[in-house]
């Protein structure tokens, strides 16, 4: 698991111990920023420019005087990212021309054909009448692929069987669009390397003859340092009008986005979030900024949860949570589902819990995995009645359970306390999920944050009061806590299936 920028700055600046950010230690802090960006695949040249801008901002008094310079610096970096990514933002130009011509291009395998289909679908949903033109005559069955997508979507696709003349295909497709009154044409071209001059010339010719209204460069979110060269070359030769960042449903940090925006000065207009045709969304600079910095990624977690969790079972559990009937049996079921999500450390890393450091995560996770086994043993030593109604468990029952599971009675009581807290948290998260469902994204975010904060607050409070020894003990009790309670609620979050709509990132 990658360290987040806040993790790192916390080590460098050790904030909380009163050390402030000074001009002297600024370089160290900025080194952390540099590393975080490089690990997120931002191209080195862009990183350097970016660091310069951040330094300027951070040297301003606000950061230096702040009591929490690490957090403050993260904020400066984050805001600057949002600013850069969003500065050039412009929506798709769909109103010009009849028909309006959209041309897709990019490296091999970046997602042009899939995005063509998604875009056509979106246009039709907005009341337009798009035609797709299959102009990839090189990749085997590329035409079939676009035609199949068209069929699946019920959208017309133009192709000329056996033709390898891209210009002719585009020309005739356009004629058809004009004759039959299509409002938009989307030209899907073959993938090509930006260093392949012949292939670039083909695009240039298309561009000159048809003057597309949108020229969209499709970029894979997993792209590394080369992103800068790719974007630069396509942009100088074709003067790109916008970019599409695909495969953001993966777990890549997506730093390439910053590279391509910086180097072209052109906006990212759309993002791809699924292989399926409904996985296309508008670009949100703030979400991507958070993602590049590794500041928690609830959207990924939601998606992972969706693919891992049995929908029916999750619904049943969710219903119980709402009615406050969530039992230890359900807890066990949930744990089993959650194991599919990955290690505790991984899950924790995806949650936007402020101040949760890598060390804490690992400690929780490490303690957690062992503790989970003990908890299982405890639950196994309970009667079905006790599992359904943990309130029944008082001193003597706790002693019996401890004996049966090879634990101590305090462990049992401690676990039951944690469980109570968890139940409370679940309420909050279910609420967040309900709010999100009803479109109240801000409310959902607030509930979510409140729940997370209060959970963390309880933990911190506990260890503060009970001293050092108890502090360590408090953590292992957590395995059921972080994120887990929320899980069952997640699958039904809106737009999740399309990989989006969820407000937190």
């Amino acid at each position, binding site marked *: 698991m990658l360290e987040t920028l806040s993790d790192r700055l916390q080590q460098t600046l050790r904030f909380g111990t009163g050390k402030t950010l000074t001009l002297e230690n600024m370089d160290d802090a900025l080194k952390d920023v540099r*590393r975080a960006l*490089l*690990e*997120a*695949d931002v*191209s*080195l040249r862009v990183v350097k420019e970016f660091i310069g801008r951040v330094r300027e901002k951070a040297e301003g008094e606000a950061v230096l005087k702040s009591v929490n310079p690490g957090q403050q610096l993260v904020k400066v970096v984050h805001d600057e990212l949002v600013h850069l990514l969003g500065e050039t933002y412009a929506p798709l130009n769909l109103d010009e021309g009849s028909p309006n011509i959209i041309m897709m291009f990019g*490296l*091999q*395998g*970046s*997602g042009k*054909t899939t995005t063509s*289909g998604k875009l056509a679908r979106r246009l039709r949903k907005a009341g337009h009448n798009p035609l797709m033109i299959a102009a990839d005559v*090189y*990749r*085997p*069955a*590329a035409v*079939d*692929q*676009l*035609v*199949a*997508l068209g069929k*699946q979507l019920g959208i017309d696709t133009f192709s000329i069987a056996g033709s390898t003349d891209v210009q002719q295909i585009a020309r005739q497709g356009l004629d058809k669009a004009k004759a039959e009154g299509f409002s938009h044409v989307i030209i899907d071209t073959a993938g090509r*390397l*930006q*260093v392949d001059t012949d292939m670039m010339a083909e695009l240039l010719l298309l561009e000159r003859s048809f003057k597309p209204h949108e020229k969209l460069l499709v970029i*894979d979110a*997993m*792209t*590394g*340092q*080369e*992103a800068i*060269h*790719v974007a630069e070359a396509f942009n100088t030769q074709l003067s790109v009008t916008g970019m599409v960042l695909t*495969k953001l*449903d*993966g*777990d*890549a*940090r997506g*730093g*390439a986005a910053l590279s391509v925006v910086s180097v072209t000065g052109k906006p990212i207009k759309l993002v791809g979030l699924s*292989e399926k045709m409904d996985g296309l969304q508008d670009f949100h600079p703030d979400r991507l900024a958070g993602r590049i910095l590794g500041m928690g990624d609830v959207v*990924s977690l939601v*998606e*992972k949860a969706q*693919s*891992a969790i049995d929908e029916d079972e999750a619904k049943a559990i969710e219903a119980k949570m709402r009615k406050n009937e969530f039992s230890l049996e359900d807890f066990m079921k949930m744990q089993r589902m959650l194991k*599919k*999500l990955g290690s505790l450390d991984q899950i924790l890393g995806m949650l936007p819990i402020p101040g949760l450091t890598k060390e804490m995560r690992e400690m929780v996770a490490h303690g957690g995995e062992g503790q989970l086994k003990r908890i299982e043993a405890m639950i196994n030593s309970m009667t079905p009645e006790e599992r359904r109604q943990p309130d029944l468990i008082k001193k003597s029952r706790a002693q019996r359970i401890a004996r049966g599971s090879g634990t101590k009675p305090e462990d049992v009581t401690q676990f039951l306390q944690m469980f109570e807290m968890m139940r409370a948290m679940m309420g909050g998260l279910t609420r967040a999920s309900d709010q999100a469902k009803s479109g109240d994204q801000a409310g959902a975010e607030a509930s979510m944050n409140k729940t997370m904060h209060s959970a963390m607050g309880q933990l911190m409070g506990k260890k503060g009061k009970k001293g050092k020894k108890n502090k360590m003990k408090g953590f292992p009790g957590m395995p059921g806590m972080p994120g887990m309670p929320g899980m069952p609620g997640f699958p039904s979050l809106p737009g999740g299936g399309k990989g989006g709509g969820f407000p937190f990132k």
Partner: protein
Amino acid sequence: MFKLFNRSDSPSPSSAPSATPAQACEKPNSETLADPSAGDSSGVKGAFSGLRAALRQTRNGLLGQLKTLTADASDKPLDAEALEAFEEALIRADFGVDLAVALAEQARQKGLSARQLKPFLREELMRVLGAVSQSSRFNELSYGDDRLNIYFVVGVNGAGKTTLIGKLAHRFVGHGKRVIIAAGDTFRAAAEEQLGVWAQRAGAELVQTQTNDAAAVVYDALRLAQDGGDVAGSVVIIDTAGRLQNKFNLMEELGKMKRIIDKEAPARHVYEALLVVDATTGQNALSQAKVFAQAVNLTGVALTKLDGSAKGGIAFHIAKAHQLPVKLVGVGEQIDDLKDFDAVAFIDGLLDEEAL
């Protein structure tokens, strides 16, 4: 290859079933099945020069950028500026910060001069790639002419799996082998048609399914391979749908396919699970290697699209973090644009700023 199964850090527990004792101690009779068009009897040399030529783009870069800093022929240690430039050249090639910083730091500690930098880097990179410490076969695609050879091709969306399979099939058919391709991508639009074109170009048999059960295709292909009885030297190549490694169910599906292989393959067989990685990929390839290894017990990496400007430095990072050797290299979209990975050629291609 079987060495791989014994390595203590071999990532997947699922390697156990397929490495039966008989297999583990017995080496397959292997021939060198290098690119037949290379025209050199050893095969390896042809691949070598081909790779070097293909890396022309790649090479314009790494140490070339350092030329001004390292032109100094004296023996004084590199200064801070040169070391930083060195580190940055590695980062720009997607080596990853950790590896770049570590290499620059070593160079600093050793007080290397400009002249010493290249030999140092070559040696270190060879070590990273496992080309020094492991057997000479470490980077070689396994093949046994006395058994069934199974190549399981996996990777994220658009990495170049299907194309690689076409090229690989072509190579084996060129050596007179029976090749069966299993159309395991039952998801993407026209994936089967695409693979069908490649199978036809290569002259390989294609196994498809009417349903969308990817595991069933694997089963059918393995049965077809064994129906006639004699499987010696035959090849089964399995295509899979591209998938992002954070999709739990899709990774499970791969695990299921792997289990079918374990069950249906004859006791003696060669198993290679290749992760196809696009050379333009950044640090995410590390997570790919990790998760795919857990799902299918990877035995190697195929690095594609090296004909572009990307340097593929991520391969070093993968090799270091996961002890996964690079075995094949894709250098174009044509059927013979496939090269064996040759660590020496690859590194020299990266470093040798004036060879061509």
